[in-house]
Every structure is written in C-alpha cells, then in structure tokens.
C-alpha cells in the first residue's frame, strides 16, 4: 500500500511501469501549446457553422422557411431535415441530425448554417422563419410513468422470492428517493472540423470519445463508404461520457456542410447551446421496499428504478442495465427484484456519464441500508458491514457473478481505523448536543464497481506500434486521451515492454486510419484494453528483435533482455537503436499491430445473468460535513478514502482520477442541479446557473490512500481500471449530510432528502424532520 500516490520502490526490469510520471502533455497544458480542435490551424477557406436549436419542448413544425437564412450575408449553405439523404444517427435508432416535422425537446437541432464567420452563421440562422404548434410535453419521470412513456422495454432482474421473503421479514420499510441528473461540463465544448478530401472523402477532427462511431456515422450521413472517412483525435478537453455518442451529431453537421460546400467547416457549440443540446447523466426515481432482521441484515429488497432517458434510447439501455447491476453495490441481497423503467421524456437524450448508471444503482441500495440502520437505531456503518458480500453462500451477485473474497471487509476495516471513525462519531455526537444551529454528520460508504463493457463485443481493442531505425517508437492505439492519462499509461507499457526510456515512445493522435473499428474510450477500460493491445504489438516486434539479437550477440533468444535502451544477451550487449537498424538491414519488420479481447466475460441479456465484468474495483470513503441549520448551507470538513487500483500503472495518474472523480461525484450530489421551467426549458445551461464544485468546496483535509494489491485477473501489469469507481465514493458525502439532518430530529427518524442536496433541500429536510419529531412528541403527549 502506498499513501499520497507515491510509487512503490522500483522493481527490477520495470523503469517506467508503476512510476508516478507526469501526464504526457503536462508541459503543453501549462504553456498553452496543447492543441484542441478549435486551436488547430484553420484551413484558408474554412467556413463556420451554427446549429439553430428548438426553443420548444415539444411542438409540430408548421412552417420552416430557411430562405432568409440562405440569403443572409456571408452564408454558404443552409441545411434542414429535408436536405438530408440520411438523418438517422445514434448507437441505436432514434436520434436525428436535424429535427424532422416535430421538435421533441427544447434544445434539439432544427437547422444548420455555414457562413464565413461564426457570428454571420448565427445571425443568419436566426433569420429563418419557424412556426411551431405546441404539443403536450412530458418532462419529468413522474409524468412519463403516468403517461406510460418509455424509450425501451422495462427490464427486470430477480433472484429468489422477494415477495414472500418480504412478507416473512421481521421488519419492513419502504420509501422513495429522487436523484438528479448531471451535466458533464467538460471544459472544452463539443466541436468538430470537417475537411473534404479528394474523391468525396472527409477528414474529421472531432472532440469525441468514440472516433470509430463518428467515422461510421459521418460515412452514413454523407452516403460514402466508411473507408472514405477518417476521424482524428489528439486530445479532449474533458469527456466524462459526454462525448461518447454526443459528439457524433456535431461531426455529422460539420461534414454534411463540408460535403455540400466543398469547403472545410468547423462547428463549435457555445456553452449554453452545448448544455441545451446534449444529454446528461440520467435522473432517477427510486422506490424501494426492504425486509430485514433485527440486526439489520437485509433479507429481501424490491427496487423500482425509473430514469429520465429523454427522447431516444441513445445509451439508456446499457446505462440502466448498469444501474440494475450495481443496485447491490457491496451487499449480498438474498432475495431481490429490481425493475428498471426507461422513461421517455421531452428532454435531451440522456447518455453516458462516468459511472454509467452505476452511481444511481449504488445510491438506491445505500439509501436502503441507511434507512434500515436508522430504523433499528444502529450505526449505519455496522449495518453496512453486516450486509457485505462474504461468507458461505453470500458471495454471488443477483446476476450470477462471484465476488472476490475479502477485499471489501479489509478496506472497510482499514478505513474505519485510519479515519478514526468511532471516536469522531462520538465527538460529532457531543458537538451536536451543544450546537443548536450547526450540526455535523459522518458516513462511511463502500463501492464495488464492475469493470468491462456490459455489451461483451465492445471489450476489444487494437494498437499499432512502429519502431524506426533510430530506435524511436511510434505508438498508436484505439483509445482517446481526454485527460485521464491514457496515452501515458499505454506508453509506459510499451516502453517497459521494449526496454526503452519513455521519451523514446511517441504517442500520436488517435486516428481511425491506424486502428479501425474501436470501441469508445469508456467504462474505465481504456488502459486495461489499449494497454494490453499495445503490449501485444510491442511484444510481437520484440520477439522478432530478440531472435536477431540472439544471432548478433551469439546467444539464445530466450536469454535476450531489453532494458534501459539496451539489448543484452549474456555479457554482450548493443543498443536498442543499433538492433533496430540491424533489423532493417535484415529485412525484419519493425511494425506490428496488437489486438486484445477481454477474456472470461459473458452475458445473457435475456436472463440478465452471466459474468459481465472481468473484475470488480472496490473502495470506501468516510466524509464528515457541517450543516448550517438556519440556511441549509453545508461544507465537507474531512474526507478519508481508500481505493483499490490493483498494481497501478501510474499511481500519480490514478490518484488524480480518484480525487477528480470524488469531487465530481460530490458536485453531482450537492451543488449541481438541473432545473427545467414550466415550459420544459432547461434553465441551468451555463456555469452562472449550473454550479460544479470550485476549489473552495474541496475539503482541506482530504486523505487519499491507494490500495495497490495486484489484480487477480491477468490485466496489464495487474492494474485496475480507475476512471469511474471513485466517483461513487462521494456518496459518503450525501450520507454524511443525511446524518447531519438526522441530528436535527429526535435521533431515530430518517431524513427525507433527495439529491442533489442543495442548501434548499437540506433546509427543507431539516424543517420536515423537525416537524415529524414534534408531531411524534405531541402524539406521545396526547396518548
């Protein structure tokens, strides 16, 4: 175990892997040299596009006259749905490039203009005449449930006999919890630049997590073969899932306008349009019922998870599946039923967001466990511990995957001790007793998160490695660098494999020309999969080189060692560069591709059963908060967390992922609120109204510990995926707030607090619990 993200002592033979090296672009970031799509040199005849968005939540387009836009100064082309040969895009049918006949959410794209400047395009677009006839709009989950409006069929996961088990249970509780969505707020907004190539081809610079999907969809809407389209991505200014499917319409519009005009076209959404146009994390409504024994052990649970999906399926199927697959979190649920409803609403189509439904599933079961504990007057930590996976017959998830023994109990035990949980709980109790207007709360919550795409076929990756005759290495893989340090980690793996210093490995922009048919960089799987693929490519070259080295150094191939830029065999050695040069002279290929498919996983969607995940990543966090009882304002005083990263490829990068995810999760559950007005218009569409955490919201006392136990599965250098799981550690903040609100009641009542726990929700929950406590007192006095 290492603390503070420091590396463990270097091990023999691995100079680069496991080292806490800085981000591959760090120096470019701090000097402003790092180029994002909007920073690329602009081709001389570049046009700028503007996307006109609907200002109605649901309406028939009665009249659409684009001619005033086309006649406006500087305009080169205008597109409406009628101009498109193929309007349908999206991972599953349901999404359109441009609205056709009706608009289905406020923010949907209606019309696109290309002009000499972005401002001219914007002005022209607003001159188009559009008459709408409003139709009834369904905006909330409740409205959709009432209207039976769904984008996909309801999914059920069941184990045992939850109905009878509930009836048999000694204690029963039920409740509901509303969980708000979340805007990605990547700092770099959606952007693409399409550059026509000869013969009808198109080069698309896109800020996307899914270059292959952009390529395929651009080819589809242009009516050209996939081979005629290239997507190139050097880096993203943040993605978080928001550029997995949502980048494609931007790229498609740019490409369509480029095809029509024969000129390069750039489309960049400003912040307001970006937030109005694109999907977000799904809001969830959780309705639950639980049966449990006097010790707080859950015997049966029934959960109904209803989510706001927006107008189309997009990724709502797998997102909601993952919510179901994480509705157990760390707990063994003997009898369980989870019903997942995918509600259709007149809002932007909700999409991938770090955790991909997992966080909402975890929130649901954590609510149940916390309520059980409060009902029985037990410390919630004790009840959490009692329900953990482990022990005979208690190690299999409701969907049939075995849970590795021991990790979670060990993490909880360690954290309870290092965070001083017990004595702090005592201190908080004493503090609250003497503090009528400020209350504190504490909570420890665990996380177990499954790593792999649930759609098994997505678990494949490719890489391409070239060695040049000077021994320098060119690395390309199918993953996208969006800040998570993927390029660095993969380069570390390749440098280690070839035994060359890291600066000999040049990582380049991801392009569909070098690695085809890739999966999105998502599901915390980027370094697991691309790292493996690149390792295999490097190994293929190394095998060829080793054979030659054995000849050149008069030894056996099995004895050749690649290390520190040298190649040794016995006592003889040569530099890696000399060997590469020799290989070229001997007509040995210095290029190889690598391909990796995640082993062992399988999934039966119909039975909702199988082994969807190669492994689980686990962790736990303790948060302590303070609440102002008069205003509901609150702040996090201290956080302690332990997170399991396997044998980390780069502990500094992993610590960055953990801390960043935690703070992002904290924002989701506290200050980040999406607010629609009565007309179904999202009104929090800029940072002035949508509040992500700022530096001052992060606790000064923030203790992060990496648990570096090698992965049992044969992942790349036994590391673990780390992008998503730590986001859910922030659920401890939400439960600490519940704990502080509970301290305003009589000590036994459970707070009614929805997420995000804004000051308003916290204050209203305090009012409500006080009124209930008072009512109980009066009831007791009257009887």
């Amino acid at each position, binding site marked *: 175990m290492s603390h503070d993200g420091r590396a463990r002592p270097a091990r023999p033979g691995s100079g680069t892997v496991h080292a*806490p090296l*800085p*981000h591959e*672009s*760090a*120096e470019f*970031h*701090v*000097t*402003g*040299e*790092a180029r994002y799509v*909007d920073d690329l040199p602009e081709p001389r005849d570049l046009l700028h596009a503007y996307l006109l968005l609907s200002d109605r939540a649901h309406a028939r387009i009665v009249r659409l006259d684009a001619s005033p836009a086309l006649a406006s100064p500087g305009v080169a082309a205008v597109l409406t749905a009628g101009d498109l040969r193929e309007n349908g895009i999206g991972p599953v049918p349901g999404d359109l490039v441009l609205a056709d006949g009706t608009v289905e959410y406020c923010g949907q794209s209606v019309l696109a203009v290309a002009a000499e400047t972005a401002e001219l395009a*914007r002005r022209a677009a607003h001159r188009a005449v559009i008459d709408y006839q409003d139709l009834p709009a369904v905006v909330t989950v409740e409205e959709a449930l009432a209207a039976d409006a769904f984008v996909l069929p309801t999914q059920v996961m069941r184990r045992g006999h939850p109905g009878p088990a509930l009836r048999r249970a000694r204690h029963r509780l039920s409740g509901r919890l509303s969980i708000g969505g979340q805007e990605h*707020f990547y*700092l*770099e907004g959606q952007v693409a630049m399409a550059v026509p190539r000869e013969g009808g081809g198109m080069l698309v610079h896109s800020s996307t997590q899914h270059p292959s999907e952009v390529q395929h969809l651009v080819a589809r809407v242009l009516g050209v073969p996939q081979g005629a389209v290239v997507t190139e991505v050097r*880096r*993203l*200014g*943040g993605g978080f899932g928001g550029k997995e499917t949502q980048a494609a319409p931007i790229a498609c519009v740019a490409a369509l306008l480029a095809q029509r005009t024969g000129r390069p076209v750039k489309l960049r959404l*400003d*912040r*307001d349009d970006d937030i109005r146009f694109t999907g977000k994390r799904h809001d969830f409504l959780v309705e639950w019922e639980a049966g449990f024994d006097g010790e707080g052990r859950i015997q049966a649970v029934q959960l109904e998870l209803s989510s706001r999906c927006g107008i189309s399926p997009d990724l709502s199927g797998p997102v909601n599946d993952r919510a179901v697959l994480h509705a157990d979190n760390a707990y063994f649920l003997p009898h369980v039923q989870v019903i997942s409803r995918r509600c259709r609403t007149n809002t932007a189509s909700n999409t991938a967001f770090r955790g991909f439904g997992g966080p909402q599933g975890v929130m649901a079961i954590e609510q149940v466990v916390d309520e059980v504990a409060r009902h029985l007057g037990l410390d919630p930590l004790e009840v959490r511990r009692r329900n953990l996976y482990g022990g005979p017959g208690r190690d299999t998830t409701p969907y049939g995957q075995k849970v590795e023994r021991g990790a979670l109990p060990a993490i909880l035990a360690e954290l309870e001790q290092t965070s001083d949980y017990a004595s702090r709980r005592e201190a908080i109790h004493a503090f609250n007793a003497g*503090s009528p*207007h*400020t209350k504190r709360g504490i909570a420890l919550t665990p996380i177990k998160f499954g790593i792999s795409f649930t759609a098994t076929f997505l678990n494949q990756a490719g890489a391409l490695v070239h060695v040049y005759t000077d021994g320098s290495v060119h690395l390309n893989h199918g993953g996208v660098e969006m*800040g*998570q340090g993927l390029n660095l980690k993969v380069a570390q793996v390749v440098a280690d494999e070839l035994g060359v210093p890291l600066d000999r490995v040049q990582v380049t922009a991801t392009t569909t020309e070098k690695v085809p048919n890739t999966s999105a960089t998502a599901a915390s799987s980027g370094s697991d999969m691309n790292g493996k693929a690149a390792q295999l490519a490097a190994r293929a070259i190394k095998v060829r080189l080793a054979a030659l080295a054995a000849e050149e150094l008069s030894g056996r191939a099995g004895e050749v060692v690649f290390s520190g830029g040298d190649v040794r065999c016995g006592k003889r050695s040569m530099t890696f560069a000399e060997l590469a040069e020799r290989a070229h002279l001997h007509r040995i290929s210095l290029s190889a591709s690598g391909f990796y498919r995640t082993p062992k996983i399988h999934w039966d969607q119909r039975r909702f059963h199988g082994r969807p995940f190669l492994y689980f990543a686990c962790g736990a966090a303790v948060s302590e908060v303070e609440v*102002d009882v*008069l*205003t*509901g*304002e609150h*702040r996090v*005083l201290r956080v302690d967390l332990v997170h399991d990263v396997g044998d980390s490829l780069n502990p500094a*990068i992993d610590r*960055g992922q953990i*801390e*960043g995810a*935690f703070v992002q999760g904290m924002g989701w559950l506290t*200050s980040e609120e999406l*607010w629609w007005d009565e007309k179904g218009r999202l*009104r929090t569409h*800029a*940072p*002035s*109204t949508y*509040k992500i*955490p*700022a*530096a*001052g919201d*992060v606790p000064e*006392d*923030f203790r992060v510990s990496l648990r570096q136990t090698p992965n049992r599965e044969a992942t790349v250098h036994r590391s673990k995926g780390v992008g998503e799981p730590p986001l859910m550690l922030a659920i401890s903040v939400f439960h600490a707030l519940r704990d502080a609100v509970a301290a305003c009641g009589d000590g036994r009542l459970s707070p009614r607090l929805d997420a995000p726990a804004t*000051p*308003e929700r916290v204050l*209203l929950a305090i*009012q409500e619990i006080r009124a209930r406590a008072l009512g109980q007192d009066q009831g007791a006095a009257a009887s």
Partner: protein
Amino acid sequence: MSGAVRFLLDGGVRSISGIDPTTTVLQWLRGPERRCGTKEGCAEGDCGACTVVLGELVGGVVRLRAVNACLLFLPALDGKALFTVESLRAQGGALHPVQRALVECHGSQCGFCTPGFVMSMFALYESEREPPTRRRVDEVLAGNLCRCTGYRPIVEAVGRAYALGTRDGVSAREGLAQALAGLARERALDLEHGGKRLVAPRSLDELAAFTAAHPEALVLAGGTDLGLLVTKEHRDLPLLVSVGEVPELHQVEESATHLEIGAAATYSEALPALSAYHPSLGALVRRIGSTQIRNAATLGGNVANASPVGDTPPALLALDASVVLRLGAERRELPLSSFFLGYRKTALRKGELLTAIRIPRGAPGREFRAYKVSKRVDQDIAAVCGAFAVEREAGRVRAARVAFGGMAAVPLRAVKAEAELTGRPFGEASVEAAVAALEEELKPISDMRASAAYRRLVAGNLLRKFWLEVAGPGAGEQGGKRPAEVTP
C-alpha cells in the same frame, strides 16, 4: 480622436485600430492573433479558462491583476500590458515557477482549464511575496473551474511554486513601468469602427459632459455584466462610454463621517476600505464573483445596474448609504433607498451618472451583518442576500435596518420588519414579530436558484441568525456561524 488601442504584449507595443470596439480580448487573441493558449469555456466570466493578466501603473508601480478575457473589450487594454499563457516562458524556454509546479504536482489532466489556472497563479505569485494560506488560494482560484482534478493538486502547486523560489519577474517590471508610462494618454480614447463607438474619457468633467450630450450611451465600468450583452445576447452596442479611465472615479476616501467609494473603483480596489469599515462587509464582497470578476467589476456598477439579485445593495441599504450623481455640471446626492424604482429601473435621469457611493459611519455600537446564501459558496449568484443593522440605546433598539436582495423586483428594505424591531428590546419576541412581518413584505419568486418557499424561510432565518450572532444566547461563539466562514 485617438483611434488606436495601444498596449504592451511580449515586450512590444501593439497598436490596434480598425476593429469593432466591442471585440473581446478573447475573440481578438483566438481570432486575428491565432494565439490559442487562452481558451473559451463559457464566455460569461464564470469558468476562468480565458484568464489573462493585465499590468498597469498604479502610483508609479506596476500592478498585476487577473481578469476574464471573455468579458473584456479590447479597448480596456489601452495603456496596459497584457500577459497571456504564452507570455510566461522565460527566454530560453524555461517554465515559469507556477507552470513547473503544476507539472510537478500533476495539476493538469485534460489541460483545457490549465492556462487559466496558470494565469491566476501567475498574478498571485508575482504580486504577493508571502506564500498564501489555503483560504487565500481558494479565493484566488475561485474563478477557475476544473472538472478533472478535484483541485487538490492545483492548490498544492501554488505552494510548490513559492517553494521553487527564484522570481526574476520583479526586476523585469521596472522596464515595464517605463514602457507603461510611455503609453499614458492625456485625451480620451475614441474608437469607432463598423458603426460602433467607444469613448474612454480621462476626467470626470469630460465624462459628465459626454454623457449629458449623449444620454443614449451605455456606461461601461468593469463590463462584467455589460459584456454579457455581447457574448451571450449577441447585441450590437452602438455607443459605449467607459468610466474606467477617470482617475477621480477610482478614489476610495475614508473620512470621520463617511466612506466614499468612487463608482469606477473595482471591488479589489475598494475591498481593504470596505473590510476596514466592517468585516462583514468585507466578507460579503469577497464572495462576489471571483478574483477575476472583482478585479474588473465595480461597486458602482453593482448599484447602477439595479439588479434585484445584486450582492451589495442590501448591505448598502442597511448601512444607509447614499449615491452621488452627476448630470453635466450638476451634482446631487440621493439616499440609496430612493434610488431603486423598479425592476432594473433607477432614479438616474437621462445622461446622469453615478459617480460615488457614500456609506456613513454608523453610530458607535451599531451592529451590522450581511449574509449571502447560494448553492455554491464561491462565484455564485445569491438566492437570498440579507443585511441587517441595529442601533441600541438603553436596552432598546433605536434604529433597525432590514434589507434583502432576491426577494422582490428591487433590492428592498423591509420597513415593517424594521418597525417591529424598533423601540423594543432586541430579543426573541421582537425578532419573531419582525420575521412574521417579512411574510407580507417579501415577494420572492421561484427560479433555478431557489424556490419562493426556501427564499422566504431563509430570509426569516437570516434575521434570526443576525440576532443570534449579535445578541442571542452565546452571541459571539461559533453557534450560527456560516460553515463556510469557519476557519479550520
């Protein structure tokens, strides 16, 4: 007419003419200059990705301040030095200490916000010699949003930069002072292009004469609100008159009877005097916008634009502030309570200017507090602002002020609540009577920041909090202290 903006960039004088005067510095950098290190994240001054640093001569000394390039019109650069992220590398390519520290502390992930952080840190590092406290760091970084790192490594990098030592920037600034002095201009800057005009007079008389002659001119101070008309509403602003280059309007005068803040003094310029006047006023001002915003925005602008959710009007109302107005050669003073007439309507006559805000010294023993409640502590618009003052005499309240923002179409004094407090002991009974009176006086709305019900509840609770803090049981102890103000 003096139709070119002249400023320093990379050691040379740039002279820009023939450009729309409402072009923002960000648009100019990323557009014609193709200097793309400075990013656009929101175009409304809330994310800080566009942060640049301005250098200017103040009393013969170069002062650096971080500002949002997205809200700054290009003419605001006139006579100043502009530093962008590209300016920081030393000759020979060495990184500036703040850049090096960010690399060493793993302070960047996606990197898009990083140039903005670099510039905020650069302004701090070059301006303050002592390593900052965590609280100061939070203050300096409040206007820079990062979605990747969770901030911890960035905060750490600030400390690391100070530990790295060597600051060669200081000596270079003597040359800078000379160069800046060379850019000083005596007459108004007057820019016109494409049917748009911006005039920046150099004296109050010149300014007052201009606005009297051109009552249609929009008055530009810090531009942190006015800039949004261009970047968010895409409006054409045909005529702007800038008050920022009038030295008289930057004056902050403290006398035995008053504190007078010139209408063009930025929050940052006024903050020391406001904090000295009353710590609660200083604390309130430190929560307005961010460092970048406070380095541009003015108290005068906050009052003159008469937003119902402005942060300072409730406090100024509670302190019986008045506004000094000027129309041509005529000067008058008006109590602030008669200044706000309706939603974004004021008592300003056509062509009349707000030139200063006067805050009288309160009677000895007057208690005052201002509170701001918002979803996020830093850089947020208030759901409710409450400000309260009481003067007591012989155990009874002689005068009470209860003022709110965010509770009506204008910043409002709740006179019925004040009446409930006046003439009675300052105790729970009178406070509860005043809270009850608020019920009918306040007309809050529900919007994305808060529901009407919450606003109502909090308004009353803030008055209770005021009483608890200044007179209630355990007054002066931690009870009731805003969590964000508890220093660890």
